[in-house]
């Protein structure tokens, strides 16, 4: 089963890279698509046998993901125009 899960995780990581590049090209804006699908890959890898190194890597990926998402949210909020003042 672990080979199957590893193959699925690799497929998810490749899909993450390809789709995020396409989304960036289409919308010209950073998107969380890459982070979402990389999280899928990480969760699938966590399914098969785990070593302390693999666990540390997953923790690192989750932390980086949180940080990047916070950055994307802050960037998209700063791009929003302020609401017009009531007349």
């Amino acid at each position, binding site marked *: *089963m672990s080979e199957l*899960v590893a193959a*699925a995780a690799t497929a*998810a990581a490749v*899909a993450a890279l390809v*789709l995020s590049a*396409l*989304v960036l090209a*289409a*919308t010209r*804006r950073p*998107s*969380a*698509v890459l982070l*979402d*699908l990389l*999280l*899928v890959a990480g*969760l*699938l890898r*966590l*399914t098969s046998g*785990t070593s*302390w190194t693999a*666990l540390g890597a*997953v*923790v690192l990926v*989750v932390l980086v993901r*949180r940080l990047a*998402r916070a950055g994307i949210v802050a960037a*998209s909020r700063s*791009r*929003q*125009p*302020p*609401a*017009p003042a009531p007349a």
Partner: protein
Amino acid sequence: MTGTWATAGESTAGTTTEDLLHTVVDAFVQVVEAAGAVIIFVGALVAVVGFARALPQRDPDAFVPVRLSLGRFLALGLEFQLASDVLRTAVAPSYEELGKLAAVAAIRTALNFFLAREIAEERRILDEKAEREETGGSGSAGGAASPGPRGSSPA
């Protein structure tokens, strides 16, 4: 001599029961963990198709429902995997394995928590957008050029 025989017999019976427990729990763990992995993978497939469909619209907001759906799949898959962690604690034989189990369960619980927050946030964004469109549609006869009373969407 009789005592020795009795002790050996009890020990053998105990070992057999423990082996049986290990086998049964291991089988359950495999099934539940595989179910979690399948749910996560199906969610990823659905999301990839959804992202590919939303791509021609060139609208970042079009990806929000897809991400919401993926988040729901991930949360469900994580619940299954947490269930398998709980099952595994029944037969974790060493401190090393218990430590790894605790780390994996902590990671999955934290991820589940953050996913729930992100899903709530994405849902709020969708609701706000729907409300904006509703207000803009009923409030202005001019059509798409009017941003509506709460300002325009970032898209």
